[in-house]
């Protein structure tokens, strides 16, 4: 378990983490999401005792990290896959890390196999691809067989096979009952990996929900329809307890709309699902030209949540 309690971290005048509190529980994969610069890496560094918090604290298994005697047996972490000496072999790197925590030599060979690196263990890490470095970093995190694991952007640089492997690996770790915190700035990535999401922006907590809840909480869960007698249908929908609003033609869709009759209106319906709207139209003899159930993707929800807290955005004037 990782407990972050009213944590703040300022670098000069920049507040990287702002009164942040959340708990990462064992037995599930928790995604740590936020745009670039949201404070994810800073939070992880504070959890690992690398950065001193300005206020608040972070506990791992109920203890401060710098109070751990054999920290790698309590917490495994991968912050930066490139944090390697280019001239050192994968095996020598892992051995030096293992020795610092009194981890016996055979465990080094075990984690090399676990990460699929046994064939390149004797090669210098400087020649590794980013994907191989990620695997080496994960191998190092697993050295102490720790109950708590933290990975900062572990999917960067992995090929599709590697991404599939790492997702399965995180799930296995969680199924073992371990606490797994995985950061990413990509919702699409986390949607397929994480059971629970901690979303931050500008150092503040935006959401701490299960992935399923986040999908369901989406406000954009509606049905788009097109019908010649849309005004009549809107009245019927309202009578059934739904809400129908006519969708104004946007400039982008004007061309395609010009091909259809001007009288054919587009409606966005909430409160009734697509099946109910279709039955209603059929019962009243109203033809439907389109009936599209729309669900906001997690990506949309995430963008809504973080739109106010993105530090760097393209196309801003």
């Amino acid at each position, binding site marked *: 378990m990782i407990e972050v309690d009213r944590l703040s971290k300022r670098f000069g005048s920049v507040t990287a983490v702002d009164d942040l509190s959340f708990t990462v529980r064992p037995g599930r994969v928790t995604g740590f999401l936020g745009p670039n610069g949201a404070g994810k890496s800073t939070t992880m560094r504070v959890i690992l005792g690398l950065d001193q918090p300005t206020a608040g604290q972070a506990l791992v298994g109920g203890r401060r990290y710098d109070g751990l005697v054999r920290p790698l047996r309590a917490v495994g972490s991968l*912050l930066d896959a*490139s944090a390697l000496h280019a001239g050192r072999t994968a095996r020598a790197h892992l051995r030096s890390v293992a020795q*610092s925590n009194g981890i016996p030599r055979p465990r080094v060979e075990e984690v090399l196999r676990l990460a699929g690196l046994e064939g390149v263990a004797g090669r210098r890490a400087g020649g590794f691809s980013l994907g191989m470095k990620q695997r080496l970093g994960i191998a190092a995190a697993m050295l102490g067989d720790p109950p708590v694991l933290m990975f900062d952007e572990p999917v960067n640089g992995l090929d599709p096979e590697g991404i599939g492997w790492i997702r399965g690996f995180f799930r296995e770790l969680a199924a073992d009952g371990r606490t797994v915190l995985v950061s990413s700035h990509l919702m699409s990535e986390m949607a397929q990996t994480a059971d629970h999401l901690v979303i931050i922006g500008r150092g503040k907590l935006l959401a701490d929900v299960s992935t399923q809840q986040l999908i369901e909480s989406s406000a954009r869960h509606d049905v788009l329809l097109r019908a010649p007698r849309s005004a009549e249908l809107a009245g019927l929908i309202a009578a059934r307890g739904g809400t129908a609003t006519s969708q104004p033609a946007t400039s982008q869709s004007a061309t395609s709309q010009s091909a259809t009759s001007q009288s054919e209106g587009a409606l966005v319906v909430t409160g009734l699902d697509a099946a109910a709207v279709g039955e209603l139209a059929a019962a009243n003899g109203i033809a439907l030209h389109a009936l599209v159930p729309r669900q906001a993707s997690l990506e949309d929800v995430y963008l809504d949540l973080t739109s106010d807290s993105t530090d760097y955005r393209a196309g801003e004037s």
Partner: protein
Amino acid sequence: MTGPSLATRATDLVASEWTKFRSVRSTFWVLLVAVVTPVAVSAVVAFAFANAPKSGAAGSRPPSDPLLPEVISLEYAVIAVAVLGVLAFTSEYSTGLIRVTFAAAPRRRAVLAAKATVLSAVTLTVGEAVAFTSFGLDQAVLAGHHQGVSLGHPGVPGAVLCAGLLLCVCTLLGLALGAIVRHTAGGIAATIAVIVVPAILALLPSPWNGRIGRFTLLEAAGQVTALHPAADLFSPAWSLLVLLAWPGIALAAAAVLITRRDA
């Protein structure tokens, strides 16, 4: 406190640092330079001293001290091992590996101590081997010209031992300044500056050149390695203290800063 004893944890950290030290090629090359250069240079310098005219123009006087060729040559090795010391930390800061190291060992001063232990053990061994080899070579050259001294001569064993210590002193100074500066180029520049720049104090008018100069690393090194120490500087015993104080103070500063700063 439960878990492994302090001694076990210290041993583990030293083992980890030893693995790091010997698993990169730069270690080998730097040590090769530190061994070959002084031995070769000292032989050349000894020849030059032996063949210098007995009396003549200034600048070509014969050496007043038969151990001088060795000290001059070791100053070449000093730069090499100082770089080795600087790299111990800066190579980790430049790659971000320092975060892996400090996450594995949150007691950062213990990491500093472990690195110092490994570097000291290696540079003491290499330094003494080089000092005694150079001494043997130099004296063989000088003896041919009846200027040599034997190892049994009073004051000689201590002076040669201190010459060997010089490498360890400079590598620890480099280690500490590397931990303080955290950038390789800056760390090397700072270390060389601390070792070499104070030599300009020798240009001060007498007696201030001696009064201030005796606190510098190189003058102290000269005193403890000389058969005939200069009269206007500290005694060899005090000079040894000055020599050890340089890395000592730098390491103390590094120990304070290393725990205060974010990694």
